[in-house]
């Protein structure tokens, strides 16, 4: 790492890296028709063309690709579960370590930098990008699923999906285990995955002066080779994972939103409705993209956070209030109690759970991490590392404990206390509505639920386009706006094509499979973060 005193530091002391590489030097500039163009060669072209090729291949060989990609994903999460679980533990431990060591004092953007965004705006964007949609869909279903598998008669047997062998016939213990397992999948580990990518990108961009793109993380390891094909491949893979992750979840999301609207308003569950939903979501996302980060995605994220908070408070107040409030602390304790056994990567007797659930989740979160990490990095300038990790790791984890307690806990209460089976019988996308149906004002709260889901899709589509555009412009954040518009529309088109032609499942399995190479990228990022922060501290204390 060569540094020079000739370069002006950002706001206050920072260890800026001097490289021969100039951001945008490999870019092609010009125009397509009336629209300006500033794209990285070859990242833009290779990722764009290979995405089209994969879509065509999937449509042409639907059965084969679905079987193949599912087998690939299952082989990875089955055979390499130890690697995913072990790596995720490394990420959590490193984050916690950074909070308590002096390295946590380093500020992103230089010693005297001030935060670009207020806590409210920052948090809202973290949640919207990180797991907004997931919390809506799995907040009710996952706790029920783990509770049921733990409580079932055969829990702990070879066919059981129960975490840690379950607690057959013991309702109390099954609730504790079910909630702990759910929180485990939505708590420290996923947020640590995001925090590592985001911190590495923010550090190497704001303090070291490297372009805001995935390859920069590897500068301490590969040096100037990251500007060549090594870096191209990392960036192309990031574009791939992000676009397919977003497009397939948009496709599935349209199916789920359609089911919800059918349940609430009788909207026919047809392909036309789903395509119109995707067009609608993409259309609103386009408006948001053109309104920019502050007026678009930030504002929508804040509105959504407010709505989600209202829904949460409503369920606490009209639901089993005391059980929820005591449940919050009980679940937190259960999480603490089972955290170590659940994160143990070797010698597990609950292979179905640790491979089928945990390793799958970790691969999934990791495949999302280039997108979410890039976006978090984009909005986190001016925070200290300590503040960053507390706010990206600890507080979101606590919010997830609360969310799961309120939504999952209420649903489990309905099953255990009143014997209500509606939530169990409902399909995945309708479980939230079945739970809300048992509470007052169900029509209004279900409508709020649908709005939340749709707006979370809009913010994902918007922030995803921003991220893909930045990567395919070689880390430039000032590429012409039509490029973002292109990626936003492209994502909608891929979603519609796969929805109509089939192949959503296949390409989602492929997106999740990118979790493996990115786990290696993240382990490299851990090394880079420690090296990078050490040099920052050295400058600060000089």
């Amino acid at each position: 790492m060569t540094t020079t005193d000739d370069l002006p530091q950002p706001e206050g002391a920072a260890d800026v890296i001097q490289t021969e590489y100039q951001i945008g030097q490999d870019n092609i500039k010009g125009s397509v028709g009336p629209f300006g163009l500033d794209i990285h060669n070859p990242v833009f072209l290779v990722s764009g063309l290979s995405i089209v090729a994969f879509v065509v291949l999937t449509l042409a060989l639907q059965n084969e690709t679905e079987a193949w990609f599912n087998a690939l994903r299952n082989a990875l999460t089955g055979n390499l579960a130890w690697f995913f679980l072990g790596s995720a533990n490394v990420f959590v431990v490193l984050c916690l370590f950074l909070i308590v060591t002096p390295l946590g004092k380093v500020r992103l953007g230089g010693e005297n930098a001030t935060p670009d965004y207020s806590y409210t705006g920052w948090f809202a964007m973290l949640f919207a990008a990180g797991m907004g949609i997931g919390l809506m869909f799995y907040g009710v279903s996952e706790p029920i699923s783990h509770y049921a598998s733990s409580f079932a008669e055969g829990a702990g047997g070879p066919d059981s999906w129960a975490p840690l062998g379950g607690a057959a016939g013991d309702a109390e213990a099954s609730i504790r285990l079910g909630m702990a397992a759910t929180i485990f999948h939505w708590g420290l580990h996923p947020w640590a995955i995001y925090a590592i990518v985001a911190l590495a990108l923010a550090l190497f961009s704001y303090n070291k002066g490297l372009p805001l793109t995935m390859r920069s993380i590897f500068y301490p390891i590969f040096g100037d080779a990251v500007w060549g094909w090594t870096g191209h491949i990392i960036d192309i893979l990031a574009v791939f994972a992000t676009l397919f992750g977003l497009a397939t979840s948009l496709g599935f999301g349209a199916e789920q939103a359609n089911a919800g609207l059918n349940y609430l308003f009788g909207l026919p569950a047809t392909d036309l409705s789903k395509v119109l939903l995707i067009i609608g979501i993409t259309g609103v996302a386009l408006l948001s993209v053109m309104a920019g980060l502050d007026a678009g995605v930030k504002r929508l994220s804040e509105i959504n956070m407010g709505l989600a908070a209202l829904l949460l408070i409503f369920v606490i107040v009209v639901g089993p209030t005391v059980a929820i409030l005591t449940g919050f602390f009980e679940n937190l304790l259960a999480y603490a109690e089972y955290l170590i056994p659940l994160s143990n990567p070797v010698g597990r007797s609950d292979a179905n759970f640790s491979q089928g659930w945990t390793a799958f989740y970790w691969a999934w979160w990791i495949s999302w991490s280039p997108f979410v990490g890039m976006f978090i990095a984009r909005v986190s300038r001016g925070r200290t590392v300590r503040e960053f990790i507390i706010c990206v790791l600890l507080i979101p984890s606590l919010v997830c404990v609360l969310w799961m307690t309120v939504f999952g806990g209420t649903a489990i209460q309905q099953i255990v206390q009143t014997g209500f089976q509606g939530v169990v019988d409902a399909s995945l996308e309708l479980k939230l509505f079945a739970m809300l149906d048992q509470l007052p004002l169900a029509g209004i709260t279900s409508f709020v639920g649908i709005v939340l889901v749709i707006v979370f899709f809009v913010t994902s589509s918007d922030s995803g386009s921003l991220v893909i555009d930045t990567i395919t412009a070689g880390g430039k954040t000032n590429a012409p706006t039509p490029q973002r518009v292109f990626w936003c529309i492209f994502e909608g088109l891929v979603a519609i094509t796969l929805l109509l032609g089939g192949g959503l499942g296949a390409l989602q399995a492929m997106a999740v499979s990118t979790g493996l190479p990115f786990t290696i990228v993240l382990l490299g990022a851990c090394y880079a973060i420690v090296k990078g922060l050490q040099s920052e501290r050295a400058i600060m204390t000089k």
Partner: protein
Amino acid sequence: MYRNIAVPVDLEHVDRLEKALSTAADLANHYNAKVCYIGVTTVQPSALGHTPEEYAQKLAAFGRDQAAKHGIEVTTLARAAHDLPVDLDKILLDAISDAEADAVVMASHVPGLADHFFASNAGTVASESKVSVFVIR
């Protein structure tokens, strides 16, 4: 008539600015006015600097070159944006006001189809600025 002429500049495309720069310098010489070059960069590293501070230095150097070339008195004003392509107009308008400029000379492209979808920066500044705006094509 004018005391302080603001000239928004895009340092990535200085070659496209020549006409606007000369016009601003001529006006400055004619009215004995100062010229303030306004530049906006991203908070992230860009082609023009590892940090916004490096960009500000480059803008200042650009200003010194112009001062020597045209024999005018210049100042520079560098700003950093969260989302430059979208927020540019608002930042320019604020900077023009902060620079206490009483005229703006700004380069623009020949309007085309794209302007129906994405408003041109000079167009927006001309319609929203409180001071006289000379749009140079």
